[in-house]
């Protein structure tokens, strides 16, 4: 399979770039993601996960190195990459189906086609009964499902997700994860999924990439050998516990090796 997304020695510095000051969010960050792969990016708060995603989305330009999609340098955001943010970011002046139709509407699709596709994705996400509801009348989980449908409708080859389920409670979160996997298995887009939850990363990903904190680099790149399709049961299976234990142990070791001297400092 070919490489879909590539980060080559990316450095990202925020703030006062003049005098070498500023925050070094990423340093020599390199990562390649194969087509149709589901890669989870794991790391502590502030390690630069969102920065990686924003670079891939084209919201920011790297201070150094390059970010490539299909071998071409990213110059800005585009419809070839769908984005799901931590908040659902629904537009309150549009009802549910209008929110899903946002992309088609901006891209100027024929109305009939847009409507049909929107209905399709609302059905997939189990929201067909709510298409005329105002977005602010929905529960948190329903909102996030609308956001998923809105990202999927354009059928982008790449889906970038920034802790999309971070604000949900554990039960709702699990349902959403299963839904995500279900649809991904049908569409087989390339997914880069940011999280700081080890369970979530292991449950969803083909690969779990663990980042180190400030400045962010790749600490660990683990293949997840759990079978698919994955459902709730796998979470309490011995294989999952094994994988998790191995993962946590590796993170612990790597962290200690790389940043032993920093341990115990202000979390």
């Amino acid at each position, binding site marked *: 399979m070919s490489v879909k997304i590539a980060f080559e020695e990316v450095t990202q510095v925020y703030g006062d770039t003049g005098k070498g000051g500023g925050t070094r969010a990423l340093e020599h960050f390199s990562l390649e993601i194969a087509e149709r792969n589901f890669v989870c990016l794991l790391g502590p708060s502030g390690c630069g996960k969102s920065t990686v995603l*924003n670079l891939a*989305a*084209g*919201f920011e330009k790297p201070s150094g190195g390059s970010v490539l999609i299909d071998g071409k340098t990213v110059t*800005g*955001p*585009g*419809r070839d*990459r*769908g*984005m799901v*943010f931590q*908040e659902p*970011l629904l*537009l*309150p*002046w549009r009802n549910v189906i209008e929110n899903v139709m*946002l*992309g088609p*509407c*901006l*891209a100027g699709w024929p109305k009939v086609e847009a409507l049909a596709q929107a209905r399709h994705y609302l059905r997939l996400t189990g929201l067909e009964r709510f298409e005329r509801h*105002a*977005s*602010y009348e929905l529960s948190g989980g329903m909102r996030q499902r609308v956001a998923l449908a809105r990202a999927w409708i*354009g059928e982008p080859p790449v889906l970038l997700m920034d802790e999309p389920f971070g604000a949900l409670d554990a039960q709702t979160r699990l349902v959403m994860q299963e839904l995500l996997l279900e649809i991904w298995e049908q569409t087989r887009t390339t997914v880069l999924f940011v999280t700081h939850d080890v369970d979530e990363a292991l449950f969803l990903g083909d690969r779990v990439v663990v980042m180190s904190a400030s400045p962010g680099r790749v600490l660990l790149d683990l293949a997840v050998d759990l079978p698919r399709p994955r459902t709730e049961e796998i979470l309490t299976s011995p294989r999952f516990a094994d994988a998790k234990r191995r993962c946590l142990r590796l993170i612990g070791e790597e962290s200690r090796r790389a940043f032993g001297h920093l341990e115990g400092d202000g979390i």
Partner: protein
Amino acid sequence: MSTASVARSARLGPLISIASVAAFVLLWYEAARLGWASSLILPAPGEVLDTALQMLNDGYRHVPLWQHVAISLGRALAAFAAALVVGIPLGLAMGLSPILSSILDPFVQFLRPLPKLALIPLVIVWLGIGESSKIFLIFVSTLFSVIVGAAAAAGSVKVGRLRLARAFGATRRQQLWYFVLPSALPEIFTSVRLAFGVGWTTLIAAEMVAADSGMGWMVINASSYMRTDIVMLGILLLGVTGYLLDLAVVGLQRAVVPWAGRE
């Protein structure tokens, strides 16, 4: 306070307000009746009511009372409309473009708190003494609050929403129409209410410019002959009209941005 008592006072609220206004009118009535102040200083409610009834029949200075109200409202609404048409796009543009904001900000900050009465000589010289100068005075005093409000609203559109727009490949025009404007609307409405309030306070200043009708002119003219009863009537009309105007904007806000405060 417990939930129940909040609910109770929400139901009681309007009743308490009505009672408190009634108490005030009664106090006024008694004050006048007992002669706490001469009728020149404090005309009795009855006297004001008489004046009102008489003016409903005969008008004030050959113009029916409702027409004074309508003329003032017309001037204010024309000025408000102009302030919205000019102020909202300008404010949004300033909110989105730091450069434009830097260019215009000194003038906005300078003119906003400037007493608008100071402009009367200049406005007469530039615009004459017709309707345009009256409308212009209300317009300028409304405009800057609208601009500042719209700029703040545009500036406070969440980064996430703008990124969403860009992720969906929205053009600059689409960003404005599909994202910035509707996002800013609830906040714009709030500042429009404030701005109309400020604009309405300029009504009298505007009608000092060679007017011969309007509530503001009525107050000024009556005051030059010490007709405190008419002054009081004018004040009541001005206050009530201003209040109703505000209610209308609130109603419009509910209809146009039902999601305000519910995100």
